[in-house]
């Protein structure tokens, strides 16, 4: 959709299509690892959660297969844990160097944006609000995933090593972790499907997390404030 938008009116611009770097290579790798390990975790976790389904029972019919699927789950979990560790260490390092952009932090503007968006969706406004580098939908995505992974990571390690954790925690945390782990996984899966997939694939095809770049048009349309900041302009596009 976004690609089409560029051509008919200003064919001349097609050749000199400007684009902006949206995600660094490192960030794209992080997303890829998150996506893959998350997918593996989901696919190996669901049969364990929903054991009453015949498909799960086919998968888990022998002790060897249960062990295998849990091993895959654990390996993916370690990969994701390392990725999370890298992510957090990087944030800390950037913070220490005073180089961490605050773009992703939620602020009051996001609430105002969300309110305006709601007005727009209720036909009380003609236009969507103007967004900065990350709109409130994207921030919600990041923080939802962030906290889900925190919950599932912690609870996951508790149910992986119940004997170790109950040496200093009450035993009740184990069934609590089991419940939180399995429920949160489904919450996150539903969230990704309805919220994230909609916004990056259905509302518009936004592959910037893979290509790393966002076209000038898209940047202007969806992140106008950021566009203005990057181009040093104020107001609309030329």
């Amino acid at each position, binding site marked *: 959709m976004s690609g089409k938008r560029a051509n008919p009116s200003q064919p001349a611009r097609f050749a000199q299509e400007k684009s902006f770097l949206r995600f660094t290579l490192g960030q794209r790798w992080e997303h890829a690892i998150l996506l893959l390990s998350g997918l593996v975790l989901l696919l190996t976790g669901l049969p364990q959660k929903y054991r009453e389904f015949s498909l799960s029972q086919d998968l888990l019919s022998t*002790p060897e297969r249960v062990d295998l699927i849990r091993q895959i789950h654990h390996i993916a979990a370690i990969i994701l844990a390392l990725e999370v560790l890298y992510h957090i260490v990087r944030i800390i390092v950037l913070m220490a160097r005073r180089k961490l952009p605050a773009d992703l932090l939620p602020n009051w503007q996001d609430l105002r944006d969300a309110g305006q968006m709601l007005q727009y969706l209720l036909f009380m406004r003609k236009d969507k609000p103007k967004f900065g580098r990350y709109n409130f939908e994207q921030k919600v995505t990041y923080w939802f995933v962030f906290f889900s992974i925190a919950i599932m990571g912690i609870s996951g390690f508790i149910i992986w090593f119940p004997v170790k954790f109950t040496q200093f*925690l009450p035993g009740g945390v184990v069934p609590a972790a089991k419940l*939180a782990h399995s429920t949160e996984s489904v919450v996150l899966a539903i969230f990704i499907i309805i919220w994230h997939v909609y916004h990056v694939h259905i509302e518009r095809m936004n592959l910037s997390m893979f290509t790393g770049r966002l076209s000038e048009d898209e940047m202007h349309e969806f992140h106008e404030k950021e566009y203005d900041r990057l181009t040093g302009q104020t107001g609309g596009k030329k």
Partner: protein
Amino acid sequence: MRLRTFLFVTGLVICIVSFGFAVSDASAGPSQAKEAAIVSSAPSQIDDSGCLACHNKEGFSVELDSGETLSLNINTDAFEQSTHGSNNVTCVTCHSDISSFPHPERTTETLRDVKLKYYTSCQQCHAEQFTQTLDSVHQKSLAAGNNNAAVCADCHNPHTQQKITDGTGNLLPAARLHIPETCAKCHGAIYDTYKESVHGKALTEEENADVPTCIDCHGVHNIQDPTTATFRNSTPYLCAKCHTDAAIMQKYGLSTEVLNTYVADFHGTTVVLFDKTFPDQPTNKPVCTDCHGFHDVARGDDPEKGLSVRGNLLARCQQCHPDATANFPDSWLSHYIPSPEKYPMVYYINLFYKFFIPAVLGPMAILVVMDFSRMMINRFRKPKPVVAEKPAVKAKKSKPADEESGHD
């Protein structure tokens, strides 16, 4: 017209009457057949009195080749009161090889041989039970050469056996009380353990008919090997037969949620899964008996074995989780359904998600649907000012200009 009516009515009457006969015949069938079977199974007309003339003599016996003494005395009163004696089963029904005097030469050398020689004659009348025993662990053991494996007459003395079932084949309550004693004839050590268990004590000391005897878990005639993985994996359902029966459990204030809660927790999920898919594979996950014991199963509050005593439970956990510490047993919900009192953390997390899911994901879904609708509406509305479809894109392009006016 009249003739036709007459014929029709006659035909109808014949049909109804013959149907009635057919039905009454059918219902009468089985019982008649049964009686016939009992009568015809007596092969000859030899009267018991002929046999008892000698065999009711006290102390009548013979020494076998093995040196053992085979008693040949039949207590006439006991036999007549037995289910066989009172149902006209005669001596030669079973001892069909003996029909005259002098008797044919004895071929058996030991007491055991005598029993093994005659047990197959039970199938003449008790074909169903006999066939079941053929699959039993006892028969397999016998076939493997263990002559001491139990056959019919080891449990049911044919000369004194009382009636143990009611008319419909259900065991009489009085008969239940003596089952463990019967099995104890060979399995004495197990009986001693069972007698001390919560089940065994209730049976032997209180004559409680609710508790399981040997056969409730092991079966009667088709007793299976209880050491197989199949038997072990099916244990939860075995115990659940009684322990999910509210009518029995409420008498003792016991929960009927023991199976549900077991299946919902770590261990049970896996065991039940294996039981469904490949019931014969061994699993290292515990079944009921691994924690509660089987022949020695105790009350929950039993100071030495009861699992509601913390130390006992921890000791059980440590059998599989050797490094488990004092907190560890709480990681198993102990068959409780989480509530604010029991396992509040689990209860409140569950409660949280009950609200969180509809309260957060619901509005998100609504927003997405609204967003999609608005997008679609825009797409079909915008072309209006311009002619063709293509300029629709163009119309969108002019958005920034609109936006400015839209903003504060």
